C-alpha cells in the first residue's frame, strides 16, 4: 500500500466517504463495508500522522463503520430460513441509515455546486452603488432620516470590514511570493552541504516569520518527496535530523 494521501479539504466524514465510494467505483446502495472502512481508517490514520487536527466527527464515523462491518460479519442462518432471512436482511441492512445519509448529503453537495456556478456567473456582472440623490431632496426631507435602523448601520460596518479584508490579502500574496519554495529548497540543500550533510530540523527554522516557517516546512516536504533528504527521529517528540541523500 502506497503511503500517500490526497489531502483534499474534505467537508467532513460524509464527504470523505463519498470520495472513497467514487474512487473505488462502488455502488452506493451496496457498499462493500470492509474495503471502504479500511480505506477510511487509512485516511484518518494519515491525517493523524500529518498532525492534522482530526475532528471528532471523523472518529464517530469510524466507529459507526466498524460497527456496521461487525454486524455484517455476523453468521447467516441456514437455508431453511432463507426466505424469511432475506426479508429480515432487507429490513435490517445495517448500512441502510448510512446510505440514506450519504444520499441526502450528496443531494446538497450537488446543490452547492450549482450555487457555486451561479455565483461565478454572477461575479462576472458589475453594477455600482445608487447615485446620491440628496440634490433632489426638498428642505424638509433633507433633514429626515426615516427608514435606517441600527441594524442597517451594523450591517454597513460589516460590509466595510469585509471589503477591507478582500482588499488586504493582495499585499499578503505578493509578500508570500518573496520566498518561493524552490528557492528555500535550494537554501536548505546548501545549508546541509555546508555542515557535512546533516542538520537538526529545528535549526532550519531560524526565522520566526510565519511565512518563512511555512515555506521551510513545505520545502522540506518537497525535498522528501523528490528523495533529496531523509528525516530521522528516534523517539516521539525528540529532535528530527535532516540528512542529505547522496545523488
Amino acid at each position, binding site marked *: 500500500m502506497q503511503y500517500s494521501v490526497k489531502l483534499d479539504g474534505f467537508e467532513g*466524514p460524509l464527504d470523505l466517504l463519498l470520495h472513497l465510494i467514487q474512487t473505488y467505483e462502488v455502488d452506493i446502495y451496496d457498499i462493500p463495508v470492509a474495503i471502504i472502512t479500511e480505506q477510511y481508517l487509512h485516511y484518518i490514520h494519515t491525517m493523524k500522522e500529518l498532525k492534522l487536527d482530526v475532528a471528532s466527527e471523523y472518529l464517530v464515523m469510524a466507529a459507526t463503520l466498524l460497527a456496521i462491518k461487525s454486524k455484517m460479519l455476523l453468521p447467516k442462518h441456514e437455508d431453511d430460513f432463507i426466505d424469511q432471512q432475506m426479508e429480515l436482511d432487507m429490513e435490517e441492512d445495517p448500512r441502510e441509515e448510512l446510505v440514506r445519509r450519504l444520499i441526502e448529503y450528496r*443531494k*446538497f453537495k450537488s446543490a452547492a455546486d450549482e450555487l457555486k456556478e451561479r455565483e461565478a456567473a454572477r*461575479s462576472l*456582472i458589475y*453594477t455600482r*452603488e445608487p447615485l446620491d440623490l440628496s440634490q433632489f431632496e426638498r428642505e424638509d426631507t433633507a433633514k429626515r432620516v426615516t427608514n435606517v435602523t441600527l441594524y442597517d448601520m451594523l*450591517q454597513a460596518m460589516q460590509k466595510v470590514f469585509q471589503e477591507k479584508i478582500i482588499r488586504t490579502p493582495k499585499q499578503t500574496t505578493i509578500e508570500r511570493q518573496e520566498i518561493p519554495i524552490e528557492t528555500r529548497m535550494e537554501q536548505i540543500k546548501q545549508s546541509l552541504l555546508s555542515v557535512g550533510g546533516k542538520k537538526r530540523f529545528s535549526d532550519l527554522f531560524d526565522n520566526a516569520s510565519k511565512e518563512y516557517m511555512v515555506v521551510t516546512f513545505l520545502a522540506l516536504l518537497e525535498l522528501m518527496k523528490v528523495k533529496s533528504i531523509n528525516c530521522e527521529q528516534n523517539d516521539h517528540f525528540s529532535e528530527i535530523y535532516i540528512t542529505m541523500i547522496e545523488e
Partner: protein
Amino acid sequence: MERNEIKAVIEGLLFVSGDEGIDRKQIAQVLDKDSKEIDIYIDELKESYLSPDRGMTIVEYAGSLQFVTKQEHAVFYERLVETPGHSTLSQAALETLAIIAYKQPITRSEIEDVRGVKTEKPLQTLSAKGLVKEVGRAEGTGRAILYGTTKIFLDHFGLQSIKELPPLPENIQEESVEQEADLFFSKFQESMSTEDF
C-alpha cells in the same frame, strides 16, 4: 407624456438606483401611471437592452429591477474595478447555504445532521455576509434559532426568487449514467478499432 419619454424616465430611474434596484411598483408610483402600462414599457426597455449595442442589461433580482453590465464584457470591467462586488464562498459555506436555501426554516443542528460536521463557522460567515438570517425560533425545548435566506442571497446568486432555485435532484444518477455512457463508448470504440483510416 409620450411613450418614449416614459421609457426614458424608467431608464433614468434604473440608472440612479444602481445595485439597490427599484421595484416595478415604485416606478409606477413615481410616474403616476397604471402598473400594467408601466410593465409594458419596462419589458420593452428590457428587450431593447438585449441588443449587442448596449453595455448594460436589465435584470430582476429579488423582485427589484437593476442595470448590470453584460457577462461577456467582464474582462474590461475587471481591469477597471479592482474587486468584484463580492468574494466567493468556501465549500463549507456553500453546502450550508444550499441546505438552508432548500430546507428553510431550519435549525443549526438539522443542518449539521445533513452535513455530518459542525457548522458554526460557516453559519457565522453567512450571517455576517447577510446571506442568511434568523427567521424565527423552533418550538420545543431550547427554542433553537431557525435560519432562512435573505434578499442579499437572491442577489448574490442572481435569483429573482427562491422558487427559481433548480429542483433538488431526487436521485443523483449522473455518475452511473456517465459510467454507462463510458462503457458504451469504450465498447463502441472496441468495435470500431479494427476499422481505421
